[in-house]
């Protein structure tokens, strides 16, 4: 049981480390690249927000 706990903890730490690494990588993007990511996030969030009755507009970068 102890070994399982240790294994889980290492896995968790690995996931957290990977997530933090991903966040750091995102921070280093250029501003225009970050804006593209924001628009991708808008595309993901918009249907959920609209279903909740909030009118949102996904940016048109074209």
């Amino acid at each position, binding site marked *: 049981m102890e070994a399982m706990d240790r294994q889980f903890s290492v896995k968790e730490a690995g996931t957290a480390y990977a997530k933090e690494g991903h966040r750091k990588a*995102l921070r280093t993007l250029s501003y225009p690249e*970050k804006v593209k990511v*924001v628009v991708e996030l808008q595309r993901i969030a918009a249907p959920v927000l609209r279903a909740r009755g909030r009118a949102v507009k996904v940016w048109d970068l074209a």
Partner: protein
Amino acid sequence: MKKALSVLNQLEKSRIIERYAIGGAMAATFYVEPFTTFDLDVFVIVPQTPSAMFFSLSSVYEALHAMGYSDEKECVLIEGIPVQFLPAYNPLLEEALAQAQDLLYEDVPTRVLLSEHLAAVAVQTGRAKDRMRVQMFLDAGVLDLAKLNGILLKYGLEEKWKQWTGSFQ
């Protein structure tokens, strides 16, 4: 975005606005990882008549309407981007705008508020999302704490900052 920023530059060139800088979530995104937002907040200084009793953005809206852009709730939709204009309504925002960082968005010049001013404005505004933004800045290590302390002291925000950062630990 590039076209919207060009329109803002055009407003500044034609003296409809004296100076502008990107604030809010899109300014924060310049310093930290991107996160979801749907508005481009733009702080502006608008030429005012000496007798004006309050900040009016009507000249900005009129100019944009004349250029064919329409309102969308509290924003103006400029080249596919909902832009919310906010007047620099207090000394902290005036300083933030004066010291905003120049940058190029692709080949278009623009400005964003400094991270220290964004943090101070967040403390002053005090909403839950402002608190989260301060936490993001701290996590990312993008604040010059000496510079920030100077701003917090100048505008009487140091106690609130201590409360916030104390509760983060």
